[in-house]
């Protein structure tokens, strides 16, 4: 009896061996390779890279395999690896206007410079399971021509002063101090840079629900998709010794610019406001959710009433991280019998006293 409540090293080792067995599954079937996962399950890989906060498709593929397809477990593996890597510095800001575009759509303009590029999307597929492999579509091998000159939609609106200006200007040399949530704990109230960092690695499901809630009236922001673009961007790193920036590679990102209404105030003319989302890999759902939540969290800036969960900075930022969330929820599996014992003792005492007062009352 007593044996059942105690663990020990042998039990842990045995459990790990059993896990390795289940992970491998039927030995008659070939084992998945990391490359297969990185290539064929890229959307899943994107999520692990984004929320794991490390761009490495092959490593993310390996993590998914090791985690038996448990995405949050895979994200955790990547995070725990990432935190051990040496920090050389910070990259230059990404220039997403120069993106090698694979997909780019706007829902605010019918046509625009660079055009609407549908690209690889599930959007207009009929969600029918392909039971007959023969009927499945022949893949199109032609590479998507990424050399489209497509300025940001926001830039076009910006010219007419219809939309709030972005604070950052690449030509401006003044240093902007950007926070780093991996090096400084978040303190509240948080600035937008810190909020966006938190959202960028926040749980897709959590942000999706929060974004959804703003659409249903809990912190309404009247959003339009100004633009979603997905493709490759060049990552540049300023090398102190050289005195200039060098390209250190290309990464795939999805960017979403949400256009939101703002009525204006006494000293400010009415203008569109913005919500922003940027995610590793292809993940429009996450990028869109992020931009909805980003805009909702800016309520104080525009003097909007702060009443909904999605507008509540402390609530959103301190619960968005699924590695933290899953750890704390699942820690309830750990033994708590010392505390439970204390509760048990008190409960017994309270019940005894209750009985005594009942008896006294009946006497």
């Amino acid at each position: 009896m007593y044996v059942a409540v105690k663990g020990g090293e042998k039990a842990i080792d045995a459990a790990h061996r059993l896990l390795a067995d289940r992970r491998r599954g039927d030995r008659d079937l070939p084992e998945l390779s990391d490359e297969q996962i990185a290539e064929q399950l890229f959307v899943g890989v994107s999520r692990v890279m984004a929320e794991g906060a490390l761009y490495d498709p092959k490593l993310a593929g390996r993590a998914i395999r090791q985690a038996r397809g448990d995405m949050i477990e895979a994200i955790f593996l990547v995070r725990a690896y990432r935190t051990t890597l040496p920090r050389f510095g910070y990259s230059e800001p990404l220039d997403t206007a120069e993106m090698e575009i694979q997909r780019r759509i706007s829902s605010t303009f019918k046509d625009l410079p660079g055009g609407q590029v549908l690209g690889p999307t599930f959007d207009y597929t009929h969600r029918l399971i392909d039971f007959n492999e023969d009927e499945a579509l022949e893949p199109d091998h032609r590479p998507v021509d990424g050399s489209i000159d497509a300025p940001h939609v926001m830039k076009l609106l910006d010219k007419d002063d219809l939309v709030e200006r972005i604070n950052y200007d690449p030509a401006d040399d003044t240093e902007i101090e950007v926070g780093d949530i991996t090096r400084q704990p978040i303190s509240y109230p948080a600035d937008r840079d810190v909020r966006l960092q938190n959202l960028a690695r926040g749980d897709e499901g959590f942000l999706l629900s929060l974004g959804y809630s703003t659409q249903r009236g809990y912190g309404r922001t009247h959003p339009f998709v100004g633009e979603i673009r997905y493709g490759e961007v060049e990552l540049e790193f300023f090398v102190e010794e050289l005195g200039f920036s060098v390209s250190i590679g290309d990464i795939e990102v999805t960017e979403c610019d949400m256009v939101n209404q703002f009525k204006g105030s006494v000293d400010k003319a009415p203008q569109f406001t913005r919500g922003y989302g940027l995610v590793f890999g292809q993940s429009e759902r996450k990028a869109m959710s992020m931009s909805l939540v980003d805009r909702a969290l800016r309520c104080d800036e525009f003097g909007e009433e702060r009443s909904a969960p999605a507008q509540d900075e402390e609530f959103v930022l301190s619960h968005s991280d699924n590695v933290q969330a899953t750890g704390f929820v699942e820690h309830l599996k750990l033994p708590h019998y010392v505390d439970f014992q204390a509760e048990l003792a008190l409960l017994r005492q309270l019940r005894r006293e209750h009985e005594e007062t009942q008896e006294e009352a009946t006497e």
Partner: protein
Amino acid sequence: MATKTHDNTTVGYNFAYLDEQTKRMIRRALLKAVAIPGYQVPFASREMPMPYGWGTGGVQVTASVIGQDDTLKVIDQGSDDTTNAVSIRKFFAKTAGVKTTTKTNEASIIQTRHRIPEEKLQEHQILVYQVPIPEPLRFLEPRETETRKLHALEEYGLMHVRLYEDIAQHGHISKTYAYPVKVDGRYMMDPSPTPKFDNPKMDNCQALQLFGAGRESRIYAIPPYTKVVSLDFEDHPFERTKFENSCGLCGAEGVYLDEVIVDDNGGRLFCCSDTDYCEQRREAGHRGDMLGDAPSYVKSSAEADVTASSHHSAALE
């Protein structure tokens, strides 16, 4: 023997896993915490290779204070052999190659979850607590911006009202663990979910007590010989949990007991939650009334096999 030496550290990782910059950052937070007893110092908590909520704060603190000559003991629920204690002990055996022990008096660092050892701690020892929610006011005020303000103003009325309401409703303060304390007459502090039975051990303790909350990015401390008072009222003084039974295995009284269901008829065994304390007593010849004809102590061949299951099941059969 209970103390075990480990030679190999993990290839590719720094001593005790964390890199030296991270350790320096944590040590700075620790120094600040020691300088302001009971104050929660924010620190840039790292992802650790075990989940948040499973002791990442304690592990980061231990990793930052541990040296090659240290001897580490890890307990969870008072016991060295609960799975998570085993896992954390193995982690440091693997990444730091330090000596590990199950004996309280042999340890220089003791990492704990939910208990303080029964044996009195000494000046040369450090007790590291794993903390889930560092803020004692969190369930009365969910916002960090507010609770920090309350601490700054030493405005602890909320908690006193909460405790008073308990008395009004139940006749007792119904907090049995994570019972709030005041440290050095200034900061209200959550002692982590240790049972209130252990609160008096924190007061004027000879050892340095460090608290790490990884998920919440907070560190706090009680320096040695610091006054720690459990909150109470003049007419309702703090009461330690009392047990009617003595330990069924070693006969100890006035210690914290685990209640174990031993058969299908609801038969109960009460035994020491501090397994090391219980073993030491049985080794010294003490016997509880549940031992029957079983030998009071079974010597094990190696520490790896020291599981309470092997002792206790032998004792129960």
